[in-house]
């Protein structure tokens, strides 16, 4: 019996093990690994990519270029009707965002909250996946319950937590019964320094099921024969966890972490509903700041500049991930 070694990272990469992938000029159906195939690839039906390409151009590329262009304009309520003629101000909006707005503070709040919430959500999601990995009566029900935070719309999550965390809400009642002081600033969760932790707590509550889902999928995809083989070799649960489960989960976990960080960093609805606008200073996250600049202050140019900065920031972890799982290179170049 052979144990096929798959790159653990590749598990998170869709199609990484696609058996039906074309094998170019490799001869005798042998995949080409380890060397680059630089021969021209004539005759491939690239035109079939056209619909996807056109769609990407219309839905992603053009709006993005327009956003970048707008970020160089002094576009506001006085000029938007003839936005093409709005004064071109170069990088003024970026300078303004950097110097005169709360951009840096918002990046810090969004970024740190996203990282902290993700780090806490990871063990919670993994533990949940481990508890429902093996069969037991009622497993389907438990799995469904675990998904509730994931399937609830952010608007509902925000509204419910807003009620729970209100000064006279359930959370403070509970803390009071536990003998904790909830008077005055101690019971203020939706404004002031504690609101930052409230944001993180609610984000954890809403985020862990995604990690749970990915980890569970990873666990389920481990070939049972691997466990059998390890058991035959006399491996205990710890050895199996360390040598089989963890390497196989690296891919799904990395993907889960990345998606969760980006999702929380980009999260608009939850903080918007939870704290309202204008945001309390401690929870002024980047998406809400961008929204306020656009739709309450009508500074569309400044807001577009913020959105571009936000995109660049998001690209950092994304590129790191793409490098890690090597999704940015062709199948043949691996």
């Amino acid at each position, binding site marked *: 019996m052979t144990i096929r070694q798959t790159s653990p990272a590749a598990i998170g990469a869709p199609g990484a093990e696609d058996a039906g992938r074309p094998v170019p000029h490799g001869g005798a159906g042998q995949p080409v690994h380890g060397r680059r195939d630089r021969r021209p690839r004539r005759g491939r039906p690239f035109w079939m990519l056209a619909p996807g390409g056109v769609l990407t151009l219309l839905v992603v590329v053009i709006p993005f270029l327009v956003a970048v262009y707008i970020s160089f304009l002094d576009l506001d309520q*006085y000029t938007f009707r003839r936005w093409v003629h709005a004064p071109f101000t170069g990088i003024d909006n970026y300078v303004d965002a950097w110097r005169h707005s709360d951009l840096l503070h918002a990046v810090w709040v969004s970024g740190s909250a996203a990282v902290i919430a993700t780090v806490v959500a990871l063990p919670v999601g993994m533990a949940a996946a481990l508890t429902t990995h093996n069969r037991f009566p009622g497993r389907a029900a438990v799995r469904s319950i675990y998904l509730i935070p994931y399937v609830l719309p952010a608007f509902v999550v925000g509204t419910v937590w807003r009620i729970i965390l209100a*000064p006279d809400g359930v959370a403070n009642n509970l803390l009071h019964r536990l003998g904790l002081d909830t008077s005055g600033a101690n019971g203020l969760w939706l404004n002031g320094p504690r609101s930052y932790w409230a944001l993180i707590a609610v984000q954890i509550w809403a985020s862990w099921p995604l990690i749970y889902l990915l980890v569970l999928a990873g666990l389920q995809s481990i070939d049972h024969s691997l466990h059998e083989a390890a058991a035959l070799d006399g491996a205990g649960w710890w050895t199996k966890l360390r040598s089989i489960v963890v390497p196989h989960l690296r891919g799904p976990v990395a993907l889960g972490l990345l998606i969760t960080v980006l999702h929380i960093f980009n999260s608009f609805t939850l903080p918007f509903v939870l704290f309202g606008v204008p945001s309390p200073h401690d929870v002024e996250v980047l998406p809400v700041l961008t929204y306020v600049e656009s739709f309450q*202050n009508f500074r569309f140019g400044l807001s577009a500049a913020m959105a571009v900065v936000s995109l660049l920031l998001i690209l950092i972890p994304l590129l790191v991930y793409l490098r890690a799982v090597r999704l940015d290179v062709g199948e043949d170049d691996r």
Partner: protein
Amino acid sequence: MTARRRFLALASTVVLGTALAACGSSSDSGGKKATLDVLVSANTIYPDQQRQWFADVSTKFEKQTGSKVTFETFASANDELTKIQTSALSGQGPDIYSLGTTFTPTAYATGAFEVLTPDDWTKIGGKDRFLPATLGISGPDDSHQVGIPFASRPFVMAYNKDLLAAAGIDKPADSWDGLLDQAKKLTKGDVHGLAIAYGDGFDPWKFIWAMSIQAGNPLIVDGKAQLDQPTVKTAYETYLGWLATDKVVDPAATGWKNAQAIAAFGAGKAAFLPMVSATSKVTLDKSAVAGKYAYAIMPTIPPGATATAANGVPATSILSGDNLVVAKYSKNKDLAFQLINMLTSADSQDLYYKTFGELPTNATEAAKLQSDPALAAIVDSAGKSHNTPFNGAWSQVQLALVNVVVQSVPNLSKGTVDDAALRQLLAKAQSDAQAALDKSQ
């Protein structure tokens, strides 16, 4: 292969034909009988009645002109702004928009709406048709008006008659200081003197504006923001002090929206509920205080004073309600004016008031309501409302004013209005407001 090719040819003909037919049907809408498209705010209190009203208006208008009216609704001012943006850019969209009064200056600044000529006013039935006060926020001056007053929603104060009687108070005070004294008397146990929504996105600025203008500061003078003036600071100290130092407001109110303040008053937990419109009646008539409350106008004497300032305005409310505006790109302007004429006529306004409880802007119709004692305070407040500054940057000034309250909340829980922090927040509000005003010049 030939069969396959033939099939492909047939399939593409069908697809192309369908697509062309679809294009054709959409362009048919610009046929002989134009359809007017109207964008109005979704009425969350009376959704069914609003749908019925849409149908009735369309039927009546079709009888008069042969043209139908279709209504679209928006949930918030931001939704509406997005709609205005996309419509103004593309040159197509609603012919008529209903705008909240305080949003009218911003909409005017976009230049997307028809400035009304004397001829246009004649088509609507003349300016004389409207209560003069309601025209106060139609445009920057008499010759540049875009907004046609449609509904009036002045703010008043509800009070619990039983609680006041038990404390020996015969009527609500006419000064903010007097109101505070009464509120102190009425605060006992879990019943508080005032119900205030500190967490609302709009309520706070209305208080600050009212107290400031009564003290002679309209917040914007000749394009200069006046948020760093002592009158504004006093207004904030008073408003924030009710909770922090005077303790006449439930400490939980730091998180309240307007609806929660109404709920607290409705549960009998507050004696006064300032800054509500007649629409609160729907909730209160179903609450524990049904039949035990009444409306009064809010105080007009600013904090720390015994009379309205010499240069002050005894405003009881912002000029609040809805204006109708006609889009510049509309191809059916005359038809739009005909519809507005119909909607602002006395009988239409009477029906609208009876259905939704919003006061008429039609002068004849408003005069009729003045004799109704239940409405006395609200009608009184309609006449004593004052317009907020007509400036394209007003929305930003509003936001700056609310922001001061939001950022002050953590300090309120400590039982003080932190003077240094308030000064700092006011300085920031002043500079933000001034920056916005500078762009409007």
